[in-house]
């Protein structure tokens, strides 16, 4: 998936996460995480984000994650939304979303 602009999704409300993604000139995946549960879930959240990027075939991205104790499913949802927005995709590949 090519990211053609910055895509943002989520909010700073409690239990949510604000994620912003854009393409990375260095062509790698860079994750910047700010989380109120950094000590307990920081590593896990970074791994989760990496995993989702891989699943969605994104190899070049700068991902800013401002986490307010979002559960995994919320992180997935917000990241996925942000990626599709960043890629300008409006026809979703539903078959792949199993």
């Amino acid at each position, binding site marked *: 998936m090519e990211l053609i602009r910055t895509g943002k999704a989520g909010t700073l409300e*409690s*239990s949510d996460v604000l994620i912003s993604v854009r393409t990375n000139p260095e062509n790698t995946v860079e994750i910047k995480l700010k989380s*109120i*549960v*950094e*000590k*307990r*879930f*920081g*590593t*896990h959240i970074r791994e989760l984000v990496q995993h989702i990027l891989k699943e969605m075939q994104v190899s070049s991205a700068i991902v800013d994650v401002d986490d*307010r*104790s*979002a*559960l*995994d499913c919320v992180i997935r949802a917000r990241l996925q939304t942000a990626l599709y927005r960043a890629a300008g995709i409006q026809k979703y590949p539903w078959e792949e979303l199993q």
Partner: protein
Amino acid sequence: MPENAAGRNIPSKIDGLPEIKPFEGAFQNTPLVRKQKGSRTLPRLNKIVDSIEQAVLKSGLKDGMTISFHHHLRNGDMVLNMVMDVISNLGIKGLTVASSSLTSAHSPLVTHIERGVVRRLITSGIRGEPAEAVSRGLLDTPVLFHSHGGRARMIESGELTIDVAFLAVPSCDVYGNANGYTGPSACGSLGYAKVDAVHAEKVVLITDNLVEYPNTPFSIHQDHVDFIVPVDQIGDPQGISAGSLRMTRNPRDILIAQYASHVIEHSGFMEDGFSIQTGSGSISLAVTQFLREVMLRKNFTASFALGGVTGNIVKLHEEGLVKRILDVQSFDQEAIRSIAENRYHTEIDASYYANPHNKGCATNKINVVVLSAMEIDTDFNVNVLTGSDGVIRGASGGHSDTAIGSGISIVVAPLIRGRTATVVDSVDTIITPGETVDVLVTDHGVAVNPRRQDIFDRLKTKHLPIYTIEQLKQKAEKITGVPEPVEFEEKIVGVVEYRDGTIIDVIHQVKE
């Protein structure tokens, strides 16, 4: 036979009586009385000194001594900082500071610790910057954390000797009669301060409201007071007391409170004449409101409420639903008004409240107590002191004192806060041992301590979502995922004393 100063012949020894000390003159052995009786040009007898500095010097405070403060001014306290600044400027070092609790208003303490003014802390809890500094290992000597009752115990037994007590008082006369419920910085009960006033070697009262002698009714007695320092302001009223605390609209809090009220109603410990203590948190306030409805429906009244008193308890009393109030700490303006006006709203000191080693404290007589928790483990041990990141951010307070005394102790808390589970395998720090905690009420369900089969039997048919505490823990884990454990260093930064003086747990320095 020699003559005494009254010109009388008194034998120097009489059989059957202890040593005879002959009279030496009226003024010789009574130092606090003026020597020139009746002189109209001398100032009226008083204990006023010009400044805190004067008071510190006169008290004879030296390096290494122990000083004390109370936390009745809560987040509005200005006195501890003022006194510490003065002490620091005087170059005094290595003190032990025994404040009944420390709040985020006490951030300057960090500097005093760094400068060596403060060597040791003895307190019920710490929050904010000082707490973070302690968790990061700033102090060489571990902090001693005690419960409210434990503090009174150690002071009364002499385990803790206070060399100088610096007590902020909202109103005070020139000779040292002080109370907490009059004046611009009124805070209500002075329960914790009273113990210090009686037992400290030297007592300094600091007030922004000097009133006519005698300041009756009084909580602190003139006969315990050494010096009085008038200052412009002892505290910020906004931080001292809340306005009226309104019932929460948060549906989660209301849900938990409904379950808790249901548990209490059917536990067997709520009957006509029962007694209760609830906290000041939003869930506790809601519980009180729901219990009021039960009391009206069943025509029950409570014999007394103990606390930690808020306006909603006062309202129940004024409605006739709670007969008496025993108050060691008044949280809001309504409670302050009530304790000032109503003889049935009685100030009690910390020892009366919860000292386990006196002849019987108030927490022994409580039927129902509602408590909070940061963490509770599958053994029902409760942590109210350290947060999910291992940093100190709370207080032991009256938690362990009330849990043990009550017929039923109920911990109310959401199962998960954000992504942090409240129910865990093993709490980071035990404040209250599981043997004394009876029921956990969360938004996802209720767990009864297996040690209390009697309560379980009464609740099982009452349409409550009852689970084992392991089940609740698993529910939480399933939702949040398994967190990485917090990492600690070897160094011990805090020692947690159970109310009886024994050590129940230790706190380690957090790893950066």
